[in-house]
């Protein structure tokens, strides 16, 4: 199953929830914001979303900026 994460095309071996995917990638869900197929997805829904073939994810967080 192919997904696009932050502009990169990746192969996922098994379907997971969004929340599990983030945790598996060593990301701290508390400080992230996720756009799922072009829509902002509130963090409450992350455990219910099952990542599927062709999905696009933008995972963002805050960095220093002026």
């Amino acid at each position, binding site marked *: 199953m192919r997904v696009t994460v932050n502009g990169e095309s990746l192969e996922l071996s098994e379907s997971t929830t969004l929340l599990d995917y983030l945790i598996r*990638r060593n990301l701290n869900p508390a*400080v992230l914001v996720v756009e799922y197929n072009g829509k902002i997805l509130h*963090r409450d829904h992350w455990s219910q979303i099952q990542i599927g073939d062709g999905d696009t994810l933008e995972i*963002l967080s*805050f*960095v*220093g*900026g*002026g």
Partner: protein
Amino acid sequence: MDKLIIGGRELKNRLFIGSGKFADESLIGPIVAQTGVEVITVALRRVDLSGGKENILNYIPKDCVLLPNTSGARNAEEAVRIARLAQAAGCGNWVKIEVISDNKYLLPDNNETIKATRILAEEGFVVLPYMHPDLYAAKELERAGAAAVMPLGAPIGTNRGLKTKEIVRILIEECELPVIVDAGIGKPSEAAEAMEMGAAAVLVNTAIATAGNPTMMANAFSQAVQAGRQAFLAQPGETTEYARASSPLTGFLRS
């Protein structure tokens, strides 16, 4: 007490700082503790999937107002998108609109900024647009629902000081909104100068973050901002603007 109110929030400290370009972001906590800075800008970026970097929010004390910028936006649409993402991240509803499509001088695009401001203000954001100082644009931003205007003192990151002084002075005189001088302020004396003119606050990033001793420099800026503010409140005598009559001095001759 002399307080600045933006978006319903009472601010005691008129120095806003940016969190970019710090060699060591762990300095931000001590700086906030020492200066009492209340507003800090942050930027939103794609996470580095290879992991490693600590999140900037871990370094910013929880009681600060986060002011996410829309850096990277090249038009109103992108700015709006970034603002919404930032809001979804759960860090409040303040946003600094920054629309830049010029990669050489990084000058803001006032037209796109006005458009983005209109949309986001309507959605309930506290919008602080970074702008090129221009009276008409400032008035338009006012009408678009901005909570303040943030004219640049000089191009971003140049530390060149208050090059736009004469125009910023006009904005201060003519705008109802707080005028926050953003970008270009390189030295505490320049921050004081802006405050003396009546700026509501100044936003400083590069000059603090890239100083030899950022903590000490932040302290210096904080004091300069306070001094400048007090000087403004104390109403210094005008120097050369003879033509600017506050009240007529010879009116009695006609009576």
